[in-house]
């Protein structure tokens, strides 16, 4: 068996700002993949557009850098056609929760077996600092000089959509994050991993320090049970002085791909093309 190492995943030089939280996420992801021993040619990363969306270029694996907001539908299309691929979708908070919000909600409910990493810097970074759906309520940006409207809570929505795996990570804690990525990839079903990601250029409120002061680990909470939906929902709406990271909700349920007869055996992409096979249908028309 091949043993994968970090070098196998070495990609282009990142064009991110020095100090950007995305570096931590990139490291954690590579670490998780190496730990899981997933070779680059068995992995597909699909990204949207934004700073986060550039991540695939800084990896070395199968990649599809899609449109803004459209990582998920491309990722699940690729997965349905070849369920042997390990598929990760990545994007920013604007990409995933604004432009791509509808795909996200419905992919969670249908439970496609992919991992979705959202680099949540609470800002539109690539376009130079506009409000995102997760920007703190009242946050002032060029497009929201009177303050951003109330922020959405991606974890609460994910739980309401009954996502199979809902977790929050922090780019400032690479090891912990790597652990979450491993669990997200290993969990059968749609795994949402929302990652607090400091943007040093455009978000001067939610900084490394701001997050560091607030985050605490759920696995260290004795009584916390991520299988309990009520508990999970209540935890998910916690945001302020204390912000939980770790697995918020986790559930086993059938993945979409397993519900279709066409996918029970071999992947679609390995099915032969047999024009003659429709012969039997033709008789219905005469």
């Amino acid at each position, binding site marked *: 068996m091949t043993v994968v190492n970090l070098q196998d995943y070495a990609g282009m030089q990142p064009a991110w700002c020095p100090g950007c939280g995305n570096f931590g996420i990139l490291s954690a992801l590579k670490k998780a993949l190496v730990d899981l021993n997933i070779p680059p040619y068995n992995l597909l990363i699909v990204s949207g557009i934004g700073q986060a969306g550039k991540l695939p270029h800084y990896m070395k694996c199968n990649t599809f850098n899609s449109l803004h907001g459209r990582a998920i539908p*491309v990722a699940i299309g690729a997965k349905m056609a070849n369920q042997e*691929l390990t598929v990760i979708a990545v994007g920013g908070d604007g990409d995933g929760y604004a432009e791509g919000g509808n795909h996200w*909600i419905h992919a969670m409910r249908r439970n496609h077996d992919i991992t979705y990493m959202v680099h949540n810097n609470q800002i539109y970074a690539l376009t130079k600092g506009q409000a995102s759906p997760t920007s703190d309520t009242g946050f002032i940006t060029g497009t929201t000089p009177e303050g951003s409207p109330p922020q959405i809570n991606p974890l609460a929505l994910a739980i309401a959509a009954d996502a199979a795996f809902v977790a929050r990570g922090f780019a400032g804690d690479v090891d912990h994050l790597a652990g979450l990525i491993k669990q997200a990839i290993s969990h059968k079903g749609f795994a949402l991993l929302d990652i607090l990601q400091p943007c040093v250029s455009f978000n001067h409120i939610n900084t490394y320090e701001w997050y560091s002061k607030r985050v605490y680990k759920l696995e260290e909470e004795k009584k916390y049970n991520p299988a309990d939906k009520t508990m999970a929902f209540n935890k998910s709406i916690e945001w302020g002085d204390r912000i939980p990271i770790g697995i918020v909700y986790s559930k086993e349920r059938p993945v979409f791909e397993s519900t279709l007869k066409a996918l029970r055996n071999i992947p679609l992409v390995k099915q032969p*093309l047999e*024009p003659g*096979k*429709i012969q039997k249908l033709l008789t219905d028309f005469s």
Partner: protein
Amino acid sequence: MALDLRIVVGGEAGQGAQTIGFILAKAFARLGCHVFADQDYESRIRGGHNFFRIRVRDSHVSAVSEVIDILVALNRESLSLHCPRLGENGVAIADMNTDPELVRQYGILTVPLSDLAAEKAGNKLMANSVAIGSVMGMLGFNSEILSGVIKDHFQSSAIVENNIKAARAGYDYARQRYDRSSSYDLSSIMRIERMLLNGNESVALGAMAAGCKFLAAYPMTPSTPIIEFMAANAADFATVVIQPEDEIAAIHMAIGAAYSGVRAMTVTSGGGFSLMVEALGLSGMTETPVVIVEGQRAGPAIGLPTRTEQGDLLFAVNASHGEFPRAVFAPSCAEDGFWLTIKAFNMAEKYQIPVIVMTDHHLASSYFTAEKFDLSGVYIDRGLPLSEDEMGKLSEYKRHRITPSGISPRALPMQSHALVVTDSDEHSEAGHIIEDAETRTRMVAKRMKKLEGLRRDMAPPHVFGPKTADISLVGWGSSFGALHEAMGLLRQQGLNINLVHFTEVWPLPAQETTDLLGGDRKIYVAENNATGQFARLLNSETGLKISGTVLKYDGRPFTSQYIIDRLKGMLP
């Protein structure tokens, strides 16, 4: 005299005009006739007025006629609406207890439809089968064939038997009283096995024959039946059919599936297609093949959801920001729909581009007879995959390698250790984001280069009538039947006219077209829209001068008479 029998069945939505009509059409097809049938219905489930029109001929037919020979009226409104269009020997059939005033006014042939159903089949609701029988009785139609069709149509044996009884009752009743068999000679029809299918079915069958393994589509009239047909067969044919949250998801899923290596498709109408155009460019930029079936209906916006139009052509040709090659096909009939859909998949994969198959409500929902598809003729071209040999050697596979044809060899994820890297940003040959002018210029040129091969692969238009003529009637797509008929009738009237019909519309095979349409002739383009879109396209691609256009944009298909009338008004 050539056979041309025109039957209309009319009633409220939910009354069953569609079923009656379909069974009649199928029976004629089984006898060996050429049949064309279209449906006219409103965007509602019950009430309103629907009708189903059938034309039965002894040679090709694929157009409607305004004239009616036999009308089956399931309600009062059908009588007042359609009787005025009864032809010289036209007759209307209605239930016995129709208002005597109307019976007198229109000379209706009454049949105790519900009474016979109750009496002979023990169920008033089988009146529709009595109506079927009545029509066939008048024609002295082969009753075994009729029973066979009824049998195939109704599943459970209990229902089948009673429906056959009901039909038989109607048959006998009408045969005795209203024999019209001498007017329509069905006896000389050759028993040739033909298919009767609509445009949606033919496109779906084409996709399946082409090996389409993935369909993501959001319901939209007129294309929804394609989804339902392929879904019904998905398990048997190892196909994934998924109805996602919206059309944007649909096309992106198809692109994702195609990236993984399967033949993938989405189907929709104009409104859904409007939502897909950003993704069209994604397909163009990432060179991921995808087939899109766009069933046009009368627009803009929601428009007339159950009516036809050819109003989306220039949109399809120019859709999405930026520039990239694409192909657009527009089948002229069901048979064409089958073969062009197969070609669409081949072109999509050969050139790694999006391909649009334009149907419309008329083509999608109308039934055509077609020669049984010869599946040995299905040709599959998956384009330029990596050879086993290349795969072994590849360490640094470049998904977007620049080649003389513009086509890059295509590897698939997990097919080898080659990594498949692509990007919606402008990218290097390796698929990674770039910013420099030189690479940009080379990559645009590479993609546009594919147009050259593609253009060579587009078939020239079909010519009907003599190869050269003083006047060329020109059309595209589903209006073929009416145009063909109009041309034939005008030739009978002594006009030196031919029909030049396009089904492979973009990139337009400009040279062949100029060869066929150049010279001194007059060119008249007939199309189902308000602005003469194909005429403009034809002119701008070839420089040919268009003498006039015959346009119709009321949501209804052409009739040959409409075209002839308009054309005559324009001829010098």
